[in-house]
């Protein structure tokens, strides 16, 4: 496809400046012949002659609970920097199409602040918003603005992908089930079939443990024992004496830890009764993104991010980046920047995104989840990437991770 066809929805909005004319050459002329074919509901023409594509970013900031392993706190701008990089990447291409991507940011510890920001953006006619928040907050925001397309970049809740189907929300962050399925495939491939599951007592830990149980059943692993970590000793001092006793159960091949905030899990490694690998939220960890990923051109994305944010890119940053790029790729493929059109394109067969994971990324049209390979990492290296070879699926092997169509009640494409 050449630019002449792409250019149409862009050119309608502006008086072509000579600079643009020079860049676009003959393309611009063809475009101006078609000015009246499009309605201008969502986009705003600007003084500089470019079409503004305004995208929102809402984040519910959260106080960190007191953690035993608090040596390396998560970055303060986790997720936000990914959205900013996605905007920069969109603009790098958008400048050749007369598009100007803009990011509106609102972050707060209080939900009402976010709701107020959203109300204002609604009045301004915004079409898509990234949300970095827990599931309940996402639900509240998405029901407040049913005409906006939201991207969930902060919640890995399985419920959002199976039962509480929010029809105006797509998910670029992997679900817990995708993570634990990725892990389970690797463990089975390694013939590590007998697991000890240790979970924390927080809500997220329990949901992660649920996902581990589901994955075990799905791929044929056996949970030899399950234990809940309820101790209150400071493991930084006493792990070597406490953990061996705690993990003295029926023999297992691997220890699966469900400790999302990173409270006790780091201290399980090298301290288990049987010398076995520790996997899950600590040890060998399944994740949507990590600094150690450098294959498939990822080194370039990582270095762009490093330069911008001066820190490592996380899974939430990647989810926000992928959401921004999904919007950017759609608009540059001639899709009107309007929530309904965007949603139907993203869920349709023509959308594809190059996301530095070795294969194209698409959305599941039943629950709006971004299909993606899941990396299995330890803090200094990429160990593997799931789906593992041999796990087959009639549509795409990527659908062996997380909830397949039959396992979800959602049907977003209707």
């Amino acid at each position: 496809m050449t630019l002449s066809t792409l250019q149409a929805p862009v050119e309608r909005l502006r008086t072509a400046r000579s600079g643009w004319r020079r860049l676009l050459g003959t393309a611009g002329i063809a475009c101006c012949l078609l000015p009246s074919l499009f309605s201008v509901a969502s986009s705003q023409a600007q003084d500089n002659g470019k079409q503004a594509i305004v995208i929102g970013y809402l984040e519910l900031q959260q106080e960190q609970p007191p953690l035993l392993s608090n040596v390396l706190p998560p970055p303060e701008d986790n997720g936000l920097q990914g959205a900013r990089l996605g905007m920069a990447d969109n603009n790098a291409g958008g400048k050749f199409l007369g598009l100007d991507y803009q990011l509106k940011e609102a972050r707060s510890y209080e939900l009402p602040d976010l709701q107020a920001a959203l109300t204002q953006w609604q009045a301004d006619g915004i079409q898509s918003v990234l949300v970095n928040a827990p599931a309940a907050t996402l639900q509240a925001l998405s029901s407040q603005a049913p005409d906006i397309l939201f991207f969930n970049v902060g919640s890995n809740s399985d419920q959002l992908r199976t039962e509480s189907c929010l029809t105006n929300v797509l998910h670029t962050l992997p679900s817990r089930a995708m993570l634990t399925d990725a892990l389970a495939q690797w463990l089975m491939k390694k013939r590590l079939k007998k697991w000890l599951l240790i979970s924390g007592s927080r809500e997220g830990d329990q949901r992660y443990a649920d996902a581990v149980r589901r994955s075990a059943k799905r791929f044929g692993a056996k949970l030899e024992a399950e234990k809940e970590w309820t101790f209150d000793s400071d493991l930084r001092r006493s792990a070597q004496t406490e953990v061996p006793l705690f993990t003295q159960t029926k023999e297992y091949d691997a220890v699966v830890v469900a400790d999302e905030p990173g409270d006790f899990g780091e201290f399980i490694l090298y301290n288990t009764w049987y010398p076995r690998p520790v996997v899950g939220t600590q040890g060998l960890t399944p994740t949507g993104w990590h600094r150690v990923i450098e294959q498939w051109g990822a080194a370039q994305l990582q270095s762009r991010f490093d330069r911008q944010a001066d820190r490592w890119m996380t899974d939430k940053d990647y989810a926000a980046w992928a959401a921004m790029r999904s919007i950017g790729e759609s608009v540059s493929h001639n899709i009107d920047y309007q929530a309904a059109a965007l949603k139907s394109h993203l869920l349709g067969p023509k959308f594809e995104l190059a996301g530095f994971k070795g294969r194209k990324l698409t959305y599941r049209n039943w629950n709006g989840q971004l299909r993606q390979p899941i990396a299995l990492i330890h803090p200094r290296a990429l160990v593997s990437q799931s789906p593992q070879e041999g796990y087959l699926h009639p549509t795409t092997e990527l659908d062996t991770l997380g909830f397949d169509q039959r396992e979800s009640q959602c049907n977003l494409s209707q």
Partner: protein
Amino acid sequence: MKLSSKRFVATKHFTQQENVAQKALRATRRLLLPALLPILLPAAFAGASQSAIAASLAYVSNEKDDTLSIIDLDSLEVVNTIEVGQRPRGITFNEDYTKLYICASDDDTVQVMDVASGQIIANLPSGEDPEQFALHPDGHRLYISNEDSSLVTVVDPQKSIVTAQIDVGVEPEGMGVSPDGKIVVNTSETTSMLHWINTETNELFHNTKVDQRPRHVEFSKDGKQLWASAEIGGTVSVIDVDSKEELHKLRFEIRGVHRDKVQPVGVKLSSDGRYAFVALGPANHVAVVDAKTYEVLDYLLVGRRVWHMAFSPDEKYLLTTNGISGDVSVVDVDKLKVIKSIKVGRYPWGLAIKP
């Protein structure tokens, strides 16, 4: 001669596992080695230079070894390994084959190697992270993709000065010069566009959106067509250079390989206009395409993660770089058969042929 060259490779291999203390030694050796080698291994060098006169040579850049492997195209054996700058990727000769330009990506420079001596004689100001480039037929303009900074840098390699920088999309990579030298086309991987550069003004005059992650462009010998691969899109677009319209979009299907893993990168067109060869990355095959009907005729199994290719001067052989298996496959173009694989360094990337 064969024995000596093996000894050389073995020595090189040992240095990869050396400890830090040996690094100082290595640095000294790196300086001295080219000078000392003729004394240490006279037989090897005499042999190599003789065969350099007799046979065409293929130069292969090894991205993760910081070396070039040199393959004798008569014997199809590696005859020499040369240490160069960090992360060498794109390589190309000047028109009289006296100099080899090397993108040393992690050194942020394009190195100039004197082909006769194998010595690096200059480092060109290339802009950050040069990955791939194309030399204009006039020999005065090297168009370089700066992958990390969304720029194309134009360098005069003879004066060692930057003559222009051109804004393009995110992660510029593929670069092709039209046979008449009037047009340079650059691909930007993340923006997924072909950027058409007027070589007189060094300004963009057109942008063509293609499928996801365009990696490589190749002009047909008559300059009328441009073939552009899209790695993640899994397609090759054949574009009419005059109208910029897409004439055809090639898709590939290999039995037993998921379509997402068919990722076209390198494209080579035979000069008789008969064939196009497309390297399909992690699908580990090269597609043979009828360049007139666009029909895919065959898929040839090569090494793992095949990216770039080059013809021998007589176009009897097509060589491919296979990054993961660390080798070069040799395709017999008449028979359309893979006849040999040659072990080179780690992650072979670029190829350049010296007649």
